[in-house]
Every structure is written in C-alpha cells, then in structure tokens.
C-alpha cells in the first residue's frame, strides 16, 4: 500500500512532464494511475469479505518516546473509502481533462489533484495516528491549492483561505487529540487501539480527547456551525468540487469518527455530541439548499446535509445505524459525484449554473440528462435506485435511536423532504420544460465529461436492483469495522409495507409539494431570514474573528515594533538582564577567576585591539562608516582568537561573514540618511547604564561557565565517530551535513526565506507598494545598525 500511495505522489510531481509528452491525451494516460490503484484495492475484496484485515508497516521516525510508522491498515471501512477515492478519482481526472481543456493551468490541475488523491488515500489507509494526521493536513493543504485554482479571482483566494483556516484550526485540535489518545492508551496504531477502547473511554483525558478529535472531524466534514467553508469552496473548478467537496475530502471527518467509533464511541456524551451535531447539521443545511438557485450551491448544502446524516448515524452507534452508514456513504458518493459533474457540464456547455436561467436541455445534452436524472432519483431516495435502500436504512436507524427516537425521525423526515425537492430542482429545472436562451449555445459535453457521471448513475441503478452484488462483499465488512464487532446482513430493495416505507412515501409527497411552491418559498421573507441567519451568520462570525485577530496583530505590531532601533535594543537587553541575571544569581552566583596570568602576549594584543576599536567607535561614533569599520575590526580580531584555539573552520567563516557583512552594510548605507543624535542626555545615561550592566552580566556569565568542569563526552563522541560513521575527518563539516543535518536544513531554509524576503521587500518598494514612506526609511536604518552590530 505504501507503494501505491508513494507512486501517486511521484506521478503527481511528474505530471507536468507527462502533460508535455501526451498533450491533450494526458487525461486518459493519467487516469490509468487511479484506475490501477482502484483495481489493486479491489483485488483485496475477497480477502476482506472473508473477514480478514491487511497490515503493512515501514518505520518512518523512530524516537525514544514513540514511533511514527508509515503503517497501513486495510479493512472494510478503509477499503470502501479507498475504492471511492480511486474510482471516482479516475473519472475526475478524465472529467478535468475535458472541463479544463485549453486552460493554461491544466498541468497544475493534474499535479494538485493527484497530490490530493495520494494524501486522501493516505488518510484512509494509514494506521499510525501521526501519519493519519500528516496525510490529513496534506489534504487541507492540497485542497487550499485546488480551491484557489483560479487564483486571479479574489473570491477564489478568499474561499481557499477560509477553507484552510477552518480545517487547519480543526487540524491543530485533532493532532492534540490524537497525541493525547496515544499517550493515554500507549498505542500509536489505530489497529491496536481498536481493541483498547475501554482504556481510552475510562481515561481521565477521555473528554479532552473526544472534544479535540470532534473539533477536527466537524471542521473537516463541515458540520454546523463550521459548515460555511464548504459552500464557499464552490469557487473551485467543478472537478475539484465534485471530488474534494462531495465525494472525498469532506468525508475525512466522517471516516475518522467511523474509524474511531470502536475506540471513542458508545458513551452517552458521544451519542449527544456526535448525534446532536449531525442532526442539527442535516436539518439546517437541507432547507438552506432550497434558498439558492446556483446548482453548485444547492448541491453543496445537500452535501452538508448528507455529511450531517453520516455523522448522526455514527453518533447513534447502533447496529442498524452502522449498516445504514455503510450503504449511505457509498450511495452518496455515487449520486453526488455524478450530479456535481453534470452541474459542471451544464455550466461548461450552457454558460451558467443558475437554474432560473436554464431549461429544456434534455434534447441538447441527452447523456448528461440521463446521468443527472438517475443520480437525482437516487438522491431523492426513490426505488429501485441504491439511494432508496440507503434512505430506508437511515429511517430504520432513526426509529431505533437510543435517545428520543421520535424527535430524530421527525427531523430526519423534514430534512429529507427538502432533499427530495432539491433533487427535483437540479434536474427538472435545467433539463425539462421549455428551452431557454443560455449564455452559450449548449451542446452535449465531450466523452471525457459524461463517462464519469453516467457510469456512477448506472452503478446506482445496478446496486439498487441487484444489492446482493455488494452486500456481503463490501457493506458487511464496512459496517463491521465501524461497529467493532462482526456483523452479518443482506440488503434488499423490498422490505414489505412497514413504517420506513410509509415515511418514504410521506417524504416523497412532501418533497413534490415543496418543489411546486419552491419559487414562492425561495423568495418568501422567512426563507430570507433563515438564509441570513444560518448561512450568513457563521460567515459573519468567521469574518469578525479574522478581522479581530488582524486588528489585534496590527495593534500589537504598532506598539511593540515602533521602528526605533534603540527601543528594541533596550527591550532586548532589559529582558536579558532580568531573565538571565535572575537565574544566574540564584542558580550559580558570581565566580571571579579571570586567569590573567595565563594569557599569552598575542592574546593581550588582540584584546587591546578589540577594546581600542570599540573605544574609537564610541568616541567618534557620529559617522556610520566609522562604526562599521570599528565593528569590522572586532570581528576580524575574533576570527584570530578562533584561529589561536584551533577552530580553523570557525575562523574562516568569521572572516568571510565579516567581509560580506561590511559590503552589505556599505550598500545599505548609501540609502540611509545621515546619523543624527536624537536622544536627550537622560536617555543617553539610561542607555549607558543598561549597556554596561548587560556587558558586566555577560562577562560574569562567561567566567562562571568556563569555571565549571568541562564535559568532553559530546566532543569526544564526534571526534571518534566522525570517520567510522560518516567517512569524514572534518568534525565541523560532518556535524553540519550528517550528524545534525536536520538542524542545518532548518537553518538553510531560514537563510533561503530571508533572501526571498529581502528580494520581495526591495522589489515591492520599487513598485511603490508600502503606503508609509516614513516607516520604510526607519526600517532600513534599523537594518543598518543591526548589521553593523553583528
């Protein structure tokens, strides 16, 4: 499984070159990758159906505290998710090749969508808590790139940032929850945790773990009130919406809760929190979908409703709920993926997605119409489609709810009425009725764009009519892995006349009624209030929070970073004096053993040179150039001291850095105004006292440190191990590039970012971006004195 995930990442990074090779055929070539992965996963079906699981593990990071393994775990749940991700992924790559044909950024789309696919597959296949989190964050990150795909448009960028912030903050909560869970149970592999549920549930951290994990899952899976980012994310191109924001990424939260149900579930607080949020979400969002006329917005809110249903089922936690969950996830992935792709095809061919501006497309786009009609019938839960079986099971699970079943089933029926109406709207309005003049002359979408929705729609029919095709082979293993105990059941279309069937008829009748009055309902005052409250309210809250945070950051920056270098130095030195001075005096105390008698003549000479240079700087310090030269002398003298003590590398570095610094500072000095003395005598005295105190403290500190016995363990280790382990005799270099390479890497990245920042700041200044020129002057003078002081 590691090979499959790694292969997807590698091909993703190579995709721009694959595009150059195959041009417009590259969609079909690249689709082979998810298709192959799909076949690989499908080949495990018989093994998983027989009740087995597959585990593979490679060590990634090994630490004393815990291990991070690239461990993979395949059971019913992860297999179904993996097959959805790769199966729909195949169609999405094809669909994208048609939808974005001719777009200059098409290679970038392939790269990002495949990176996302690899990350998402990682989330559902990973066994280790830390690697789950890493893949989870990768999905947030790739989703950010994909939502902001049309980055020239401001609303795309805003939507991308909004999705990243919401899911990113959730991700932070999640990692805390996962780490707590790991420490509480002592297990870092989910497969091991599954049998240790009682330890976690009875642990004092349980509530904290639960809330943190739920925060991660609810933000990712767009539960109310965090649901607003998902409709916003519809700014993405439709292939992205169809894939990330309906079939896969938003289900990551559902997957995680389903995966952890045997560990965290079946407590009262789980039932109330998970079931409650799910129920609230499904009710609120189902009716919100009716307040929009954009096909993608309608589908987005119906997706939020479906996610709410899944979360609610996990919360209920009964055997029936798990059965319903398995069937519902699959049925939703198929019909919603198909409907999104058709919505995109309509937008692509007719030029609009607004159902009020569309009509009569059935003769112009017959294949898309067929796919949309079948998918919508499945979404509305009408027999003999697979969606019907799913909805019946949801109703049965709601009727058996462990708490307030009457309330649960009532709200479920009310929400599903809205979904029936929404299904009708997205098919009847654009495709049936009289032909309407559309912005573009509509015609059927290309093969690459209809093959996906049509295949998914046909599967919805197939699985509905012949449910035995997937019940024992896939649905039973899925439900068993969520439930934590092996289950056994068969699916069928006809259950006889029972309460769920009657409720289905009620839902259908209600849905048709709502569809009939939809035009009036949408424009009615209560609906407007409802939309303002539930759709706009959370967005307003989000904007308020973000703006508040920006305001706070601005205020803090203006207060602390006032641009006066001397203020910065005073702050830094006083902090040093208080913090270091206190610790020094209480922990160590003064040691006076300067050892003047052991000093050699050349050391005396150097010390006198350094002190003289500093004296000149102080005495004639009204020219910046003098200061730079003074600082330079100190620097070169230090290099000599290093050399005397045998640190050749350090001395060379010091000489080179000193030389280049002087050049850099002189270049900066050209642009800096003449040095002026602005301080009053009082503040001069204050600065002098602080400077002398700081200098005295450092002197005493060095004396105390050198007086302590020297532990040669580390340096001896490096001296001995350098050649046998790292094949190098220069210990300094071996430490830099081998023993402590990760540290060096961090430092080099800092250097690289600093370089980019200097470049960006100076270029930006040239194009006249900073509004306050006064601040600009201050900053560069600050930079100059900082450089001079080094």
């Amino acid at each position, binding site marked *: 499984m590691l090979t499959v995930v790694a292969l997807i990442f590698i091909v993703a990074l190579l995709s721009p070159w694959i595009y150059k090779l195959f041009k417009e055929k590259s969609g079909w070539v690249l689709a082979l990758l998810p298709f192959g992965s799909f076949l690989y996963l499908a080949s495990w079906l018989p093994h998983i159906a027989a009740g087995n699981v597959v585990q593979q593990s*490679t*060590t*990634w*990071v*090994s630490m004393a505290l815990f291990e991070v393994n690239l461990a993979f775990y395949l059971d019913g749940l992860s297999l179904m998710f993996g097959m959805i991700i790769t199966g729909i992924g195949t169609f999405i790559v094809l669909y994208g090749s048609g939808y974005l044909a001719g777009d200059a950024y098409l290679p970038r789309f392939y790269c990002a969508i495949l990176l996302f696919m690899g990350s998402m597959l990682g989330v559902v296949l990973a066994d280790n808590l830390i690697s789950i989190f890493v893949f989870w964050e990768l999905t947030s990150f790739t989703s950010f790139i994909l939502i902001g795909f049309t980055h020239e448009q401001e609303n795309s960028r805003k939507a991308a940032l909004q999705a990243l912030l919401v899911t990113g903050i959730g991700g932070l909560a999640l990692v805390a929850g996962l780490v707590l869970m790991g420490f509480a149970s002592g297990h870092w592999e989910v497969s091991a945790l599954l049998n240790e549920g009682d330890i976690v549930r009875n642990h004092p951290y349980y509530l904290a773990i639960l809330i943190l994990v739920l925060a991660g899952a609810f933000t990712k899976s767009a539960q109310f009130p965090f649901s607003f980012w998902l409709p916003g994310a519809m700014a993405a191109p439709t292939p992205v919406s169809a894939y990330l924001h309906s079939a896969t990424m938003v289900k990551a939260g559902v997957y995680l809760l389903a995966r952890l149900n045997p560990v965290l579930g079946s407590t009262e607080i789980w039932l109330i929190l998970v079931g409650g949020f799910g129920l609230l979400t499904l009710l609120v969002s189902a009716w919100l979908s009716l307040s929009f006329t954009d096909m993608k917005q309608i589908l987005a809110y119906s997706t939020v409703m479906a996610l709410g249903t899944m979360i609610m089922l996990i919360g209920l936690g009964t055997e029936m709920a798990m059965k319903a969950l398995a069937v519902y996830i699959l049925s939703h992935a198929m019909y919603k993926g198909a409907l999104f792709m058709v919505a995109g095809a309509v937008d692509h061919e007719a030029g609009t997605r607004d159902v009020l501006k569309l009509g009569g497309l059935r003769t112009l786009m017959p294949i898309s119409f067929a796919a949309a009609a079948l998918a919508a019938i499945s979404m509305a839960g009408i027999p003999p489609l697979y969606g019907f079986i799913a909805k019946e099971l949801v109703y049965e699970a709601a009727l058996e709810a462990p708490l307030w079943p009457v309330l649960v089933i009532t709200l479920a029926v009310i929400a599903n009425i809205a979904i029936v109406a929404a299904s009708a709207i997205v098919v009847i309005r654009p495709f049936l009725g009289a032909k309407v003049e559309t912005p573009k002359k509509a015609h059927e979408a290309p093969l690459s764009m209809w093959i996906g929705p049509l295949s998914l729609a046909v599967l919805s029919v197939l699985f509905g009519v012949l449910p035995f095709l997937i019940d024992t082979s896939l649905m039973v293993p899925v439900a068993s892995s969520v439930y934590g105990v092996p289950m056994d059941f068969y699916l069928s279309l006809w259950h006889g006349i029972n309460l769920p069937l009657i409720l289905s008829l009620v839902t259908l009748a209600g849905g048709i009624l709502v569809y009939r009055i939809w035009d009036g309902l949408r424009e009615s005052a209560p609906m407007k209030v409802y939309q303002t409250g539930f759709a706009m309210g959370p967005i307003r809250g989000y904007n308020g929070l973000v703006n508040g945070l920006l305001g706070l950051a601005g205020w803090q920056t203006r207060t602390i970073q006032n641009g006066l270098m001397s203020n910065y130095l005073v702050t830094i030195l006083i902090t040093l004096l208080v913090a270091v001075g206190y610790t020094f005096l209480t922990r160590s105390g003064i040691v006076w053993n300067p050892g003047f008698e052991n000093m050699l003549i050349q050391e005396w000479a150097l010390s006198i040179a350094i002190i003289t240079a500093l004296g000149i700087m102080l005495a004639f310090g009204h020219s910046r150039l003098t200061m730079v030269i003074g600082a330079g002398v100190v620097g070169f003298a230090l290099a000599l001291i290093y050399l005397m003590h045998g640190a*050749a*590398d350090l001395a*060379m*570095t010091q000489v*080179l*850095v000193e*030389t*280049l610094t002087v*050049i*850099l500072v002189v*270049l*900066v000095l*050209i*642009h800096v105004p003449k040095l002026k003395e602005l301080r009053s005598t009082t503040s001069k005295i204050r600065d002098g006292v602080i400077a002398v105190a700081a200098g005295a403290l450092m002197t005493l500190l060095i004396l105390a440190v050198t007086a302590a016995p020297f532990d040669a363990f580390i340096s001896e280790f490096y001296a001995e191990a350098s050649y046998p382990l*790292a*094949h*190098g*005799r*220069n210990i*300094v*270099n*071996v430490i*830099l*590039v*081998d023993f402590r*390479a*990760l540290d*060096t*890497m961090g430092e*080099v*990245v800092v*250097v*690289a970012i*600093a*370089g*980019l920042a*200097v*470049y960006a700041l*100076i*270029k930006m*200044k*040239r194009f006249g971006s900073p509004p306050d020129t006064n601040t600009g002057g201050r900053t560069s003078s600050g930079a100059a004195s900082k450089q001079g002081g080094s």
Partner: protein
Amino acid sequence: MMKSLILHTATRLMIGVLVLFSLFLFFRGHDEPGGGFIGGLVGAGAFTLYAIAFGTEATRKVLRIHPITLISVGLLSLVVSGLIPMFVAEPFLTGKWLFIEWGAIDTKLSTPLLFDIGVYLCVVGFIVTVIFSLEEEG
C-alpha cells in the same frame, strides 16, 4: 559599479581563482577545513566583487542563472538528499555512501555531499540575491 582600472583588471584575474578556490574549499570540506557554507561564502564573495567592479547587469550575465533559482535548486538538493535513504527504508536524512574505485579513480559519492551542495547553492543564492537587490535599488 566602480570605474577603476586596477579593480577591473584585478577582478578579471581574481574571479576565476576565487570561484576555483570556493570549489576547492567545498570539496575538501569533509576532511579538511572548508565545506558548503564556507565555500558558498567565498563563491558569493567572488560574484560580489564582480558586481562592485562591473555592476549587477554584467554579473547576471556571468552568473547566467538567476540567484533565486540557485536558492530553489539548493533547497531541492537538501530535500532530495534526505529522501534518498527513505527509498531503502531508512529514516529521512540518513547518510548513504557510494565508494567508487575504478582504475586511478578512487572517490566517494554520498547524500551528505548532495546536502552540502544544497547548502553551497543556498548560501551563494542568498548573498547574491541580497547584493543584487541592494545594488539595483538606487
């Protein structure tokens, strides 16, 4: 840019020597004082000297590669040198070595060498970026 005959002549002579010296320092670095950081500083110094003598436009031509490209290639080398051991199931950044003895050639190639190349390129790229930006600002 300075119009000095001595500086121009000296720079023309020096730049080749400095670049060679920086490579010399770089390659001996694993066993003797030197290495990617120090070599990079000398290399950057060479181009800085050239920029002072002949201006940034001429230096860009001599350098051929945009300094930011140097930084990005350097970062890429760091990452790749870390990823290579992962293909043989060892942790990120584990040093992997290849000893070549072929006739008169007796040398060693390694991921720490690639890592050091990354450090070298980033240091050169950083300093040259800053020098170019500051020089061209006025």
